[in-house]
């Protein structure tokens, strides 16, 4: 309810802003929604959203799987940690723009370069978070697994992943928003489709309606992913923390 009020207030503020400035600088909500409808009818909105979303998913999946693997090894192995830490520091401090430009120069204006550049930008953050999680793994439970001769698969499934879950969830939350923002930049600089490309077009044409007509649906989409995918998943993996089963018993 409070969220709804806050959202309405935001729309109101936007409308007031639109009245005060001229429509080319800040078009009002009505005009923007009309434009969204127009772009949706032509199909361009959906195809661009889909393309951008696919890039987000690909880059995110790449960064998370490599990040989790490298972070785990660094968290568990002191030598690997010492060896890779300087690289990690470099990567953490490399501006996103530099990575993107380098990728396009080295690999051309290709899809691989685009997705790779985004993944590399997200990678160090995933590594740092998962490394933290790997360092916090409970040695008592490991002894238990040793005594009962858990297979490596069972160790991963029953011991490691459940303990890393909160860290993976944190990396996912911060990661998704970071990744989609960088995907837009990558599209703007070197792709001929996607939300970032359309926003670039809008900028060139000074078409603020078009710009907002792409920006808003995409924000909404990512909010939807967060609310309906990430959060439920997080609740699912952490359900053991609350007395869920007892409540289920009573039903």
């Amino acid at each position, binding site marked *: 309810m409070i969220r709804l009020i806050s959202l309405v207030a935001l729309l109101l503020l936007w409308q007031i802003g639109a009245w005060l400035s001229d429509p080319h600088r800040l078009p009002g909500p009505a005009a923007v929604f009309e434009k969204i409808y127009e772009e949706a009818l032509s199909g361009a909105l959906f195809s661009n959203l889909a393309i951008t979303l696919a890039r987000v998913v690909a880059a995110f999946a790449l960064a998370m799987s490599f990040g989790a693997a490298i972070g785990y090894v660094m968290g568990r192995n002191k030598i690997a940690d010492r060896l890779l830490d300087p690289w990690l520091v470099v990567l953490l401090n490399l501006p996103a723009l530099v990575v993107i430009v380098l990728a396009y120069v080295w690999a051309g204006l290709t899809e691989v370069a685009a997705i790779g550049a985004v993944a590399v930008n997200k990678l160090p953050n995933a590594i740092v978070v998962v490394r933290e999680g790997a360092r916090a793994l409970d040695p*008592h*439970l490991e*002894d*238990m697994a*040793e*005594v*009962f*001769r*858990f*297979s490596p698969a*069972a160790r991963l499934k*029953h*011991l490691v992943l*459940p303990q890393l879950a909160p860290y993976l969830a944190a990396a996912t939350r911060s990661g998704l928003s970071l990744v989609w923002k960088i995907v837009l930049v990558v599209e703007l600089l070197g792709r001929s489709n996607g939300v970032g490309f359309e926003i670039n077009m809008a900028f060139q044409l000074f078409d603020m309606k078009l710009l907002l007509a792409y920006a808003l649906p995409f924000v909404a989409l990512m909010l939807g992913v967060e609310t309906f995918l990430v959060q439920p998943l997080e609740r699912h993996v952490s359900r*053991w*923390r609350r*007395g*869920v*089963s*007892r409540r*289920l*018993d009573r039903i």
Partner: protein
Amino acid sequence: MNDTFRAGGAASLDVSIASKDYHSASGRPLRALEDLRLTLPAGKAGAVVGPSGCGKTTLLRLIAGLDKDFVGTIALPEHGRLGMVFQEPRLLPWRSVTDNIRIAAPHASEEDIAALLDELGLAEHATHFPRELSLGLARRVALARALAAKPDLLLLDEPLVSLDAALARDLREMIARLIDERRITTLVVTHDLREAIALGDRLFLLSARPAHVLATLDVSTPRRHLEKEAAEIIEARAREALAKAHVGPPQSKQ
């Protein structure tokens, strides 16, 4: 120098530890065990009694192969499958009671697991998560998990500690019944002499740290029929053995 090997034959568990040192970052090593020898025939229950902090958990960790940094040899029962109940239950908080048990016995059938739950009075808690259990129940789950692994050697670290008297007695009787029925070679460590007498066929009385075996006593009467007086006689013998080793009652040294 250490060596853990599997042996068959009469002596099922054969422990001979020359020394076990802990190396802390600061200063000199801490000697936890020194010249500790014990043997246990197959199918028997041994009870190790020693003052707190003397090195009982350390001994179990060495036997379980969790710590290989020691000088000496340890021969395990044939096949060497282990079941262990740690001093704290160490259940997986994110798995239900049933899953916690099943994980230790991936090849056990549903019926086996259900039977085990029944036998330990855990059936009504099968779907609960560990944080919903009292310590007594969690201990029983840990015991069920250890038994599910069908161990050749069962290690129990202070299985009754911090339970109130009634619960401790119930669990003690349950453990005694389970290891008697299954004839599992069992080594239980405790700081409580009476508990040791109630659970062990053979008692190993440990010194204060660095721990070594001061005396070994066989309890010939089957535990289940051990009368109060008989237990008292054994207790008196144990105290006598301790006195002979010039340590008086447990905990007086150091």
